[in-house]
């Protein structure tokens, strides 16, 4: 089990993380949120200023005292493929074992097995320079896992590859990480769904949500988690009739939230109806009819549908409807009946 509090004031990070043994945590955040910094602190590549991190019974760092990177049992798959270009693929994979004085034949045999596992059978003698991006990523994965880490860190493991290679790497990792304690830094919801059981959402160096994947993806409490999950997050207050949204409008929603308490609603833009304001009869706004009038702030083509963004809401329309809409024009978003949930953050 990993229990970490990472503080790096120079990089603006102050984050608490927890990963159960054998579980995988997705560290979700935008570029620059501090994902890489957290992984590099845990690996010992960069130094945390304060805080502490304990992996099982081993202290990785405690305040300013730090364990050497090689003695942590923490392997990292960096975002750039840092293969050792001067060595063969086999020697790359055997590097961790050779560093721990495993004999050359034994280390090579293990490397050979690992190359089989990642789908690169017989590539032992190849040079990294001759491999494709996806193959290089596989070598890096084999090299990290061959060192038999207690904790595996993966920085955007499926990014920077073409779509097919990316999917195949994700499937490979889903298989390999089953019983490995791991953290996967990503900005892609698919990585979280496929690879992780839990999610920590990172914003400006701090963890703002820390819960199971299902909880975060279905009931996000932060805009970034909602956006990664493809949802629009609405904030408001529970009333007798529904949820009175911050900024006006009332929508109907079931919920366990007590009347008067803050409530959240996550809406799928595909479920939101959008109509030109003139086409919708005006109704008293206090009724929980789910109609919210907002000005169009952006019109985003998404294949066969077009997403219309307002200040808070977004909804999908077909191309013909979208062609009639102009920026700044008021439109009526109709939010379907949905389920609201509380804003508590007691899940960390």
């Amino acid at each position, binding site marked *: 089990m990993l229990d970490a509090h990472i503080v790096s004031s120079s990089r603006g990070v102050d984050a608490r993380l927890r990963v159960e043994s054998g579980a995988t945590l997705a560290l979700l955040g935008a570029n620059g949120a501090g994902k890489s910094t957290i992984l590099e602190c845990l*690996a010992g*590549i960069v130094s945390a200023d304060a805080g502490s991190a304990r992996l099982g019974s081993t202290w990785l760092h405690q305040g300013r005292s730090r364990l050497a990177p*090689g003695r*942590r049992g923490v*392997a990292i798959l*960096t975002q750039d493929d840092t293969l*050792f270009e001067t060595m063969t693929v086999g020697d790359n994979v055997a*590097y961790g074992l050779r560093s721990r004085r495993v004999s050359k034949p034994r280390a090579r045999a293990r490397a050979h097995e690992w190359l089989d596992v990642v789908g690169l059978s017989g590539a032992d003698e190849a040079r990294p320079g001759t491999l494709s991006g996806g193959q290089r990523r596989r070598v890096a994965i084999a*090299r990290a896992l061959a*060192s038999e880490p207690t904790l595996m860190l993966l920085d955007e493991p499926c990014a920077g590859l073409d779509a097919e290679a990316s999917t195949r790497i994700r499937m490979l990792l889903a298989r390999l990480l089953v019983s490995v304690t791991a953290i996967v830094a990503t900005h892609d919801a698919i990585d979280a769904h496929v690879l992780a059981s839990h999610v920590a959402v990172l914003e400006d160096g701090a963890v703002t949500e820390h819960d199971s994947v299902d909880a975060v993806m279905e009931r996000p409490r932060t805009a970034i988690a909602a956006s990664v999950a493809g949802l629009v997050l609405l904030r408001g207050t529970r009333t007798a009739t529904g949820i009175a949204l911050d900024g006006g409008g009332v929508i109907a929603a079931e919920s366990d939230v007590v009347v008067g308490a803050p409530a959240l609603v996550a809406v799928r833009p595909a479920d939101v109806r959008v109509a030109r304001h003139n086409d919708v009869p005006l109704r008293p706004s206090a009724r929980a009819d789910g109609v919210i009038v907002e000005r169009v702030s952006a019109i985003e083509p998404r294949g066969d549908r077009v997403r219309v963004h307002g200040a808070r809401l977004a909804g999908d329309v077909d191309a013909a409807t979208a062609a009639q809409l102009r920026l700044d024009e008021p439109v009526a978003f109709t939010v379907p009946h949905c389920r609201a949930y509380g804003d508590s953050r007691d899940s960390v």
Partner: protein
Amino acid sequence: MTAPRWLLPLAGGGALIVLLPLVGLASRVPWSDWWPLVTSEAALTALSLSLRTASAATALALVGGIPIAFVLHELPSRWRALARAVVLIPLVLPPVVGGLALLFAFGRQGLAGDMFGSAVAFTTWAVVLAQTFVALPFVVAAIDAALAARSGRLEAVAATLGASRTRVLTTITLPALVPAIATGAVLAFARALGEFGATLTFAGSLEGVTRTAPLLIYLTRETDPGAAAALSLVLVLVAIIGVTVAYRPAKAVS
């Protein structure tokens, strides 16, 4: 070619400054006597001494220069610039001044004279020392530049895999530095081979002991300009071959 055309005449002018003297040198070589001249006993003695001392100096420059480059790289940045300037001084120092400085340090009456004086001054070791003095900065500069171009990511990853610092150095960093080391070694060797001023000042000009090829060339230039030109051509050829084979300008590396 992407460079503007007006660079061409300037490049031509610059090249003339280098090429004309070489053509001038070649024009004075007595081609029919070239082989006998460069294989005369005096010439062979000097050439052999030059090759041996320059090789030894290159080896010493590598053994000392590579660690210096690593230490420079580890220094805090405000000290690094100063330390780099000190190490690179022999590059900009007139060789005679270098020879004088060596004399005051390692000569019989020098600072370390009690320790080295009788053993070093006016021996072949003095030649090697003078050549190392002027050649060392080339090794340091080449490796310093190559280290600065490295991000250190590979070393960091190697460390996470359990490699000790020594293992990281020998398996990751040094293999990646091979081109830079070769470049530094070639430049150091070429500089050592051509060393004149510091050698003459510090080691003197004893035939077979300290009289290297450049010293012999200088000595014979008035009595036998043809022989001097013939021997000079040998040094030019050695330099061209060495630089062509092993000199690779620093490029962006990971």
